[in-house]
Each structure stands twice: as structure tokens, then as C-alpha cells.
């Protein structure tokens, strides 16, 4: 696939929950190899967009489409989306008591990559490498998934899952929120390991600081379920020169915290 072709595209997306419209016509196009940042105030619909991309049953898509590598994503079950290479790092990962991280990751890996079904020993070896890379303690392999994890540990676990599943396109929903600076660096390191010409990334954030580690090519502002502003390389260049203050001036303090 050449990188000028559409890789991941959202067209006129409308979604609601319990009859209340939340997304009101979202358009977004991400090319292969690009990283986009999405910002917006609390309640503007960022997580809803992330969940709809992954197929959460609580939301009904009433109009529009999502296309990924030529496939109509809305026709797929969440597990098929994962198998097709989509990934969501959740804002609030849930706990699955009694299920060890290792067992979960092996099942997820084998489900997403049936062609790469590896032996447990090989899998564990790679898992240990990734765990080391993300500076997570080895004991996490045998802990129950997200059960009793601290906020920061849960976020690292999301990135560990991402490294394990090697998706082609990922959405990170406020993975940076609540992280101290060391954790933020580690998470960014993990993301940058995957980043490259064969990867696409949408980073949802409220904070400027993550954008210093994960350099976005494009920036979008979501307000009340609509993208009200988008900018490409020229905008990013401007940001690098004069900072993000204009975002706050134009769209409010709450959109982006310094």
C-alpha cells in the first residue's frame, strides 16, 4: 500500500447512546505512517470515538463510515477489528480477576495472529523482553490482568498489550493521563518502538507534554462531537515554534493543559 492512499478514514460519523447523539459528523483521515493528535474538552466525545472505532456495543452508529485498509470497519465485530490490526489503549482499562497477564496475552496474541501461533516458551521470551523494555516488574507476568494495578501500571499494561499484538493502527485514549514523567517517557518509548512507516496512530490527550515525545503530524480539535479544527505539518511547525498557547486561546483552557 502506497502511503498516499487512504489508510484509516472516518467519514461523517454519527453515533449515539441511549438515544443521545454524541458524535455529530466526524471526519478524519490518517495515512499510513502518520501520527495524529486529538484534543478536546471533557465530554466532547473523544472516548466515544475511540470506542466506536473498536465497536463498543453501547454505541449505535446512525450514519457515516469507518474504512481501514479498504475494509468497512463498521461491519466487523470488535474481535474481527482487532484481528484486522486495530488496537485501542483504553482510558479506563478494566480488571479481569483470576486471569494471568501471560495467559491473557498469549490468547490475545494467538487470536490476532493465528499464523504466528508461537510456542509458550518463545512467547514468554518475547513477553519478557517487552516487559523489560517497558520497565515493568517481571512478576506482572503472573499477576491477574489489571487486578489491583495502580493507574500508571494499567497504562503501561495497555502499551505492553500493544507491543505484544503489534497492531497496524492504534488509538491511545489518554494513555498519558495520570502518568509521572518517567512513566510517560517509558510509554512514549513503547509507542515509538511500534511507530514507523507501517503504523498509524491516533493519540487522544489533554496534555501538551506527550506531544513532545510522540511527534504528531496532524492535530484535531473535537468539540461537542464535531472536529472543529484540523491542521497538518504547517500547523505542527507553527506549534513547534510558538507553542500551544493559541489552542488554549482559541478553544479554551480545558482543551489542552500545559
Amino acid at each position, binding site marked *: 500500500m502506497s502511503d498516499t492512499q487512504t489508510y484509516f478514514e472516518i467519514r461523517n460519523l454519527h453515533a449515539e447512546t441511549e438515544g443521545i447523539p454524541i458524535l455529530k459528523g466526524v471526519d478524519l483521515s490518517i495515512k499510513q505512517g502518520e501520527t495524529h493528535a486529538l484534543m478536546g474538552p471533557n465530554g466532547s466525545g473523544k472516548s466515544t470515538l475511540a470506542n466506536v472505532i473498536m465497536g463498543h456495543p453501547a454505541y449505535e452508529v446512525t450514519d457515516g463510515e469507518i474504512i481501514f485498509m479498504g475494509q468497512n470497519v463498521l461491519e466487523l*465485530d470488535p474481535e474481527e477489528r482487532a484481528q484486522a490490526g486495530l488496537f485501542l489503549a483504553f482510558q479506563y482499562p478494566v480488571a479481569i480477576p483470576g486471569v494471568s497477564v501471560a495467559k491473557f496475552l498469549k490468547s490475545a496474541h494467538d487470536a490476532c495472529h493465528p499464523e504466528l501461533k508461537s510456542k509458550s516458551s518463545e512467547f514468554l521470551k518475547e513477553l519478557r523482553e517487552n516487559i523489560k523494555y517497558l520497565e515493568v516488574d517481571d512478576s506482572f507476568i503472573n499477576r491477574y490482568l489489571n487486578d489491583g494495578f495502580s493507574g500508571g501500571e494499567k497504562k503501561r499494561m495497555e502499551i505492553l498489550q500493544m507491543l505484544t499484538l503489534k497492531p497496524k493502527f492504534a488509538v491511545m485514549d489518554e494513555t498519558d493521563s495520570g502518568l509521572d514523567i518517567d512513566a510517560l517517557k517509558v510509554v512514549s518509548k513503547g509507542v515509538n518502538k511500534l511507530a514507523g512507516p507501517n503504523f498509524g496512530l491516533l493519540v487522544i490527550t489533554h496534555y501538551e507534554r506527550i506531544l513532545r515525545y510522540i511527534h504528531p503530524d496532524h492535530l484535531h480539535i473535537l468539540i461537542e462531537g464535531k472536529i472543529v479544527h484540523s491542521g497538518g505539518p504547517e500547523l505542527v511547525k507553527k506549534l513547534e515554534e510558538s507553542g500551544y498557547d493559541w489552542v488554549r486561546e482559541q478553544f479554551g483552557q480545558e482543551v489542552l493543559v500545559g
Partner: protein
Amino acid sequence: MSSDSTAILDDYKYGFYTEIETDSVPKGLNEDVIRIISAKKEEPEWMLEWRLKAYRWWLKQQEPKWAHLDYPPVDFQDICYYSAPKKKSDNPDEIDEELAATFEKLGIPLHERDRLAGVAVDAVFDSVSVGTTHRELLAEKGIIFCSISEAIREHPELVKKYLGTVVPYTDNYYASLNSAVFTDGSFCYIPKGVRCPVDLSTYFRINALDTGQFERTLIVAEDSSYVSYLEGCTAPSRDRNQLHAAVVELIALDKAEIKYATVQNWYAGDKEGKGGIYNFVTKRGHCRGQNSKISWTQVEAGSAITWKYPSVIMEGDNSSGAFYSVAVTTNKMQADTGTKMVHIGNNTKSTIVSKGISAGKSVNSYRGLVQVLPDAANCRNYSNCDSMLIGGECSANTFPYIESENSSAVIEHEATTSRVSEDQIFYLKSRGLSEEDAISMVVNGFAREVFKQLPLEFSVEAIKLLEMKLEGSIG
């Protein structure tokens, strides 16, 4: 002989009915029926006397109503108390082909050529045992494993010595009914110092319509012996309720260990709650000797109504009792289950791990009693009772009772209730797992501690059973 028109189609794969000629006693309960049952089993006089005493006591009792269950009164005159497949051969070692085929279909081969490796099976069809495998191997070690009817005839001294010593016929309403009319079940006797080389297993099958199954099982482990016993059960799908009122007694002498595991999958009725088995069971173990151990592990997945409290009386010093339970209820099933741990000896230790899973419109209750008698010093109990709810229309209750009369006792109780959320399932699906795999992962994680107690192949079966039960119950 009855042809069956009420077996209804549904997704319970053991719901088929076997057409077979039966020898049965007319419906109804009175002393004559009990005399007939006893005569058919060629029992000695003392056995008949015991049955009649139980019956006379039962007549004076009221059906208990304290359980958190709701069902119409059982009409005891509308039940057939004895139904047996007609014998085609007088050779006791020859198994009827049709019955063998039935058990084969249930996954329990009885013929020696393809019997299950590592497990000796006693197969009970309605009111009688139809075959026991691995007999020679067990006989070599002096282990007795046969139907209780056979034991009453062949080993009367043992049966007389132990029967009713853990659960006397005056114990409770259903136990006394069972004592009066019990038809079959298993008898296991492990001699001193013998470690039973295979798992012993009984498979109960209710086939005939309107027949009650009154199972009676007795397991005796002599000093320093060990046995692991497994019990499985199924019945045809019918739109009328059937009664299964069992009594199981376990006796562990000095340093003996008995592990008893049940995978109960009786027909549970249809989605509207029509039909299904009433499973009213008294199971009790007696750690009679010092340093003895008894554990109950149960996976309760079937029955319209379950009323069951496998218990351990720890009389010998340093003895220990354990109860590990997964009870799953779906549709309109009701379960009131739990345990009773009675600490009599010093330094006795009990463990309770109960995992209730409710889905649909079902009601799942845990009821447990930990009792420490005044003279029992330094006893410990640890209880953990967790409930998991699937969907918004089911309910779970926990009724833990503690009666401690010795201040040296240490009793810990933990309980949680959680809901399998759409978010958990979505989380796992978003990582590539199918809905079934996602549910099974959540449920498995929840019941992990209990499944760990089962022999490997049974835990695999049990997990599959739960997956089957819960399929389609989320969202």
C-alpha cells in the same frame, strides 16, 4: 414400558431418552412399596427394618421451607420410587447393550475394552447400577467399589457398621425419605494404608418419566488410606419436574483422605422454567480419625432447583475439611447451596471457597455455617464467598452463619459480589477474543480456585460445561 412424548427439544445435549423395557413399581409411597423395593434388591431383614423406621419418622415431618427457594409442593404420591431396566441376562457381569450405548453417548464407556483410563466407573440408570469398571484392579488392592445394593448383599457387616452413622435417617426431611426408599448409589471401601490407584466415579442417569432417583452413596476410608471420587449426573429434558433426593456419607479414619468431586448437570428446565430436576441432597463427611481430611468440590451447573450443603464434621484432632464450589444458575434456575463446617476436635481447620455465577432470571444463594464447639481449641476457618452476576435480572445472596463457642478460634470471612460487565467482555473482544472465549475467560478467572481442585480432565470438562451453560447470556 413408557414411550416418551414429553422429552422436549432444547440445547441440553444430554436430554435424550432411552427406549427400554422397565421393571417398575406403581406410583405412590407406602410401606408396601418399601417392602417391594427391599425385596427386589434381595436385602436382609435389618435393612428393610431400617427403611421402615425411616419412613415412619418421615411421615411425621414437615417439608422444610427455610431455603431461599420457591417451588410448588412436591406430590410424593405422584412419584415412582423404583424403575429399573429389565434384565436380559442373569450374568451380573454382562452389560445390556442398549444401556451401554446410552452411557457411551454420555461419554462414559462401560465396556472393559474402551473404558476410561485412570477412572473406575459405576453407572447408575434410574434405580439400579448397571455396571462397574476396573473391578479386578481394585480387588487386587482390597478396595471394594460396587453399587450400594450389591454391598448390602455382599458386605453387609461393613454397610451395617457405617450406613446412617453420618447422616442418620432422622437428619432431615429428604434424608429420611431417602433412607426409606433409596434405590442405588455407590459403595467404596478403601482398606488401611491403601492409596486408591485410580479415581473412582459414579455416573447417575435418570431416564424414566416421573421417577425419583434416590441415590445413596457411602465411602469409607480406613486409616492412612486415600481416595478421589468423582460423580457426574444427567437426565432427559422433560417439561415435568423430577426429584433427585440423594444422601452421601463419607467417613475418614485416622490420617485418611477423601476427595469428593461432583459435576452436576441434571436437566435444568427450559427458558421459561418448565421441567427440570429438583436436586435435594444431603452430603456429609465425617473426619472420624485424627489428622484426616475430607474435601468436597462441586460444579453445580444443572437442576431446576438445588438444595445442597456438603458438610464436614471434624471430630478427630488436627483433621481438616474443605468445600470448593462453583454454582452456576441460568434462565429460571434456583440454587440454595453451601456448606456446614463443624469443628469438634482440636486444631481442626476448614476452608470454604464458594463461587456463585448467576445469569438470566436465576436466583443463586450461598448458605454456610461454621460452627466451633466449646471444647474445640485452636480451630481455624477461612471462607471466601464470591458472587458474579451476568445481566440485570438475576440475583445472588450470601447467608454466612458463624457459631463459635471457643475463643481460640480464628475465623475469616470474605465476600464479594461483582457483575460481568459489557466492558469486560468488550475489553477482551477488542484484543481479538471471540465472545465465547471472552466469557469463558472471565468466568474461568472467577472460578479458578475451584477448578484447580478438580482432576485435570474433569476441570476441562467442567469449564466446557460452564461455557455451554452461559453461551448467549451476556448483553
